[in-house]
């Protein structure tokens, strides 16, 4: 049964009317996506917070689109009145990743920004926070980037128990057994 998305459509329309050049989409129940450019994000978030009652920041995360050389930043905010989640998404350049610092809108963003700075190497100019978040003494590339080769790093850094080098690549076997194809981008991790 298709549930109607009246509330969601309404929010999408509201944002559409308030801002030029953004794409909004009522994706599913309780969820609206808004795709915006990097410069618009702060005004969208502020507008949603002050005018529409999206008071609560639920999450901020980052996605590494290696193929198109971009990072996607996602801000998820929530309104206690309409009970809708609004996802504000933006894409930034991967070579020189920089995003506006917004921890004065929500203090919690400070923590998320520290995490994203450490794990993806996205810089937030003007933002005050300890350099180290979870990792200590990290000297390599940011570890959550997809071009960071975890296995190589592990083989260089940690020891291997002798007699355990014959680990089987079960992924190949499981894929074969259920007749699935391993996608191309994952093939370079195969050991066979």
């Amino acid at each position, binding site marked *: 049964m298709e549930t109607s998305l009246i509330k969601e459509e309404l929010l999408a329309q509201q944002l559409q009317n308030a801002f030029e050049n953004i794409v909004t989409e009522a994706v599913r129940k309780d969820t609206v996506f808004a795709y915006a450019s990097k410069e618009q994000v702060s005004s969208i978030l502020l507008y949603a917070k002050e005018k529409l009652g999206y008071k609560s920041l639920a999450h901020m995360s980052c996605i590494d689109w290696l193929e198109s050389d971009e990072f996607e930043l996602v801000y998820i905010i929530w309104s206690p009145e309409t009970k809708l989640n609004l996802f504000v998404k933006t894409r930034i350049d991967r070579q020189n990743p920089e995003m506006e610092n917004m921890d004065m809108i929500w203090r919690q963003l400070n923590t998320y920004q520290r995490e994203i700075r450490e794990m993806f190497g996205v810089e937030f100019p003007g933002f005050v926070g300890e350099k180290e978040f*979870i*990792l*200590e*003494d990290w*000297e*390599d590339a940011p*570890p959550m980037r997809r071009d*960071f080769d*975890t*296995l190589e*790093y*592990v083989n260089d*850094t*940690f*020891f*291997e*128990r002798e007699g*355990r080098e014959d*680990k089987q690549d079960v992924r190949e076997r499981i894929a074969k057994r259920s007749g699935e194809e391993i996608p191309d981008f994952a093939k370079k991790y195969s050991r066979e």
Partner: protein
Amino acid sequence: MYNDKNAQTIVEYIQNFTRKNSLFMLAYGTGCGAIELPATLTSRYDAERLGVRGAATPRQADLLLITGYLSTKTLKRVIRVYEQMQDPKYVIGFGSCTINGGMYWDSYNTIKLLDKYIPVDVYINGCMPRPESVIAGFKELQSLIAAGKADGAAKYKENLEWYRENQKKVLKNWPLVEYNW
């Protein structure tokens, strides 16, 4: 028996007997395995009937239990804790993560082989080991102590340089205490 050089003296025998029956344990709850300890220590499995019970601080403890994966960040603290403990001291590695990395074998931030960094007397395998196997591990440690073979602390003193070298490989900018025993 009288001429056996390796046999324990009567004093050693009594020492080991008392040590093995009062193991004060510092459970360093690093990984998921720590969740089996409450069950092991409370009435159902009751490890206290073997003389194993919790200790409040490293200096009061005889036995360090590493219950699972260690991130490099935790490893620093574990080394610190281990060095604070007083002789006699024993280490139990708990779960496959301490043995060969377990399911974190390709994680950038967890060590794979605990015994390269601190000496381990007994490993308990399993992911995670059930209280029965934890108790079997305690029994194994007790029999090692009784035989005078649980000498991890002595090994650590002797090979401190080797251990330090391994530790420094992952803890690059962390001050490790210099000892001159």
